């Protein structure tokens, strides 16, 4: 995705994990390390983005992701505007372009975009004026790159390195932008094996081409895994032609304490949230000693601060 890199291969937008080198992904993680201590200080912000305006452009509603980005922007001393454009049937392409023009006129520096269609973030990045950076906060089923990076950050913090790791992603892979971003990030960062686990109806055609092994049985799927990432099962998938019921899903694919024993004894359990207790994961596991779910939330702020600084920095440097 050269669209997000400038001539010197630096990130000027953050749209997708695809096409980014191991070096670049590592730079994002290292930069996030530098932002991590800021949250523990008395004064929880640094003046880096002071005077910059960040717009949260959310076409799809989300409280947690939006709040994390808002917090990250504030910790960078940026001004933040929240625009929640209702995902109504009338939100067509025309209003999208018009909305962008209006925002550009208000001297904004960055758009954080969440949209229900795959490729929307790239589309917006193509449309905006050259001085504006775009960060993808999730577009359709395509990518959720900051989520992937905060998960990689969490894994690196606990496991120290990526070599030799076996990572299992369990759940609705077909509809998951998190899964796609993570499979690619994990492969680029050099893990030993990426597995996707779920019923055949929720595993997309030819996912092996992205570098993942397919398992339709959770017991074999998480056997020996070092990291187990549970994905949220959305309401509309239960009782649909894709799945008979939430109960059957939990019976077949729910992560219980019993099943977790099949993974490596030091395995960590992750979940991008929000959690559906009793549907994809047992409360005992979600709150248990192997769960790093709450850490993920905290790391999300540092990672987003890192991504926003890197990307605005490149725009700043580029215009001089």
């Amino acid at each position, binding site marked *: *995705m050269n*669209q997000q890199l400038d001539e010197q291969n630096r990130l000027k937008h953050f749209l997708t994990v*695809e096409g980014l080198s191991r070096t670049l992904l590592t730079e994002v993680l290292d930069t996030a390390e530098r932002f991590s201590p800021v949250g523990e200080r008395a004064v929880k912000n640094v003046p880096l983005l002071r005077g910059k305006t960040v717009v949260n452009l959310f076409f799809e509603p989300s409280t947690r992701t939006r709040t994390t980005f808002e917090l990250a922007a504030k910790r960078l001393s940026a001004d933040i505007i929240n625009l929640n454009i209702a995902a109504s049937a009338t939100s*067509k*392409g*025309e209003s*999208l*372009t018009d909305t962008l023009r209006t925002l550009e006129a208000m001297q904004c520096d960055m758009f954080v975009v969440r*949209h229900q*269609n*795959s*490729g*929307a973030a*790239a*589309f917006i990045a193509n449309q905006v004026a050259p001085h504006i950076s775009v960060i993808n906060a999730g*577009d*359709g*089923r*395509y*990518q959720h790159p900051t989520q992937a990076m905060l998960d990689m950050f969490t894994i690196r913090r606990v496991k120290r390195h990526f070599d030799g790791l076996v990572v299992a992603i369990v759940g609705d892979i077909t509809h998951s*932008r998190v899964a*796609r971003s993570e499979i690619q990030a994990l492969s680029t960062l050099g893990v030993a094996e990426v597995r996707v686990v779920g019923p055949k109806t929720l595993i*997309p*055609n*030819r*996912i092996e*081409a*992205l570098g993942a092994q397919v398992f339709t049985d959770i017991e074999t799927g998480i056997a020996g895994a070092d990291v187990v990432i549970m994905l949220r099962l959305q309401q509309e998938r239960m009782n649909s032609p894709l799945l008979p019921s939430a109960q059957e899903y939990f019976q077949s694919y729910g992560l219980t304490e019993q099943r977790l024993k099949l993974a490596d004894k030091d395995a960590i359990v992750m979940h991008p949230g929000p959690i559906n207790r009793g549907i994809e994961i047992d409360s005992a596991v979600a709150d248990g000693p192997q769960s790093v779910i709450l850490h993920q939330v905290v790391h999300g702020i540092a990672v987003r601060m890192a991504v926003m600084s890197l990307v605005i920095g490149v725009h700043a440097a580029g215009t001089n």
Partner: protein
Amino acid sequence: MHLCLAGARVIDPANGTDKCTNVYIKGTRVVRVGCAPKGFIPDQTIDLKGQILTPGFIELGAHLREPGFEYKATIASESKAAASSGFTSVCCTPDTMPVIDNASVVEHIKQRAHNARAARVLFLGALTHGLQGDVLAEMRALKDSGCVAVTNADYAIRDTAVLRHALAYAASCGLTVFLHPIDYWLNRDGRMHEGAVSTRLGIPGIPEAEEIIAVNRDLTLVEETGVRAHFCRLSSARAISLIKRARRAGLPVTADVALSNLLFIDQDVGSFDPNYHLRPPLREGRDRTHLRTAIKKRDIDAICGNHEPHDADAKATPFSLSAPGVTSFDTFVPALLSLVEQGAFDLNTAIAAVSQAPNDILGLDGGALTCDSPADICVFDPSQKWTVSKESLSSAGKNTPFLNQTMSGRVTLTVIAGRIVHNTND
């Protein structure tokens, strides 16, 4: 008017001609290919040395957008674009608004086409009323007003019983049915071919199974009802095998493929380029290879431009929200020539697929330069380079993946019924 078209390389597959020679036209008819007829004095001679002269192209399914979608294009703009791209006859699809399911809409379009004085417009009438797939259209009335065939365009008929009756009725009217093999349910949510690319991009996919199921269903009903059927815009290797098998078993079906499916594959969608959002979807490399071989071996008869001009907004959105289709007239000749250049098939086969074959499918009396056939002629300069731009495209639609590219090959002369409709030769 006596016209002499001199010195071009004349390719006329129907008559096995491929040589540099002259073509003589008197009134609306071709009178001779070869030496001048005795006593023939031309009112005009056009020197076409270095160029290629063929029977005029016939398009099997173009969206002329009028009535109802004039903001995208009009009969005037598109029939002129067709003519300047070498098409002497264009079949207009019935998915207008209102739909071509009654004679008055036919009359309206006829009038517009007549006023445009460009490519001949032929009518594909609707198979069902409003294309809704519930009630039959008045096919006899449509036939009487001049429709060359009936079709439900790419509006899938979900009710198999309705489809069966529609085909039976069309058969009893003596009409050819143009079938678009689409399974409504497997097609509905998809925006591109289901495969490794759609999985990577997170775009809902249309599995190959969709076309296979629909072709199987349609072939069964075609056989049972005895209707003359033409399969439109096949996209998968498996579908071609089914058609081949049916023909070998004696079923006289014909088929065409869209030029885009011979040129591009799903990977070309790249990073969500809406210029490659098409129906039928672009399938995989293996399918493209089979489609090209099928043209070469005449297992598929014709190549269709599948011309779909759009307004700028239709493509200026994220991929899944964009409208499918490309404007194909202007770039048709250079794109076709590029396929010949790549060795997909030879030039003769290509020309036959866009002139003789569509002519035969429609049961017309042209598609060839035989003595006394209509003087529908296309002349192009294969080496003329030009850059595709909003200005150089004559179609009202600028939605082409070739935008800003330099292409090789351009139509310089189009003659329709003996009248020069387009001429850029001095």
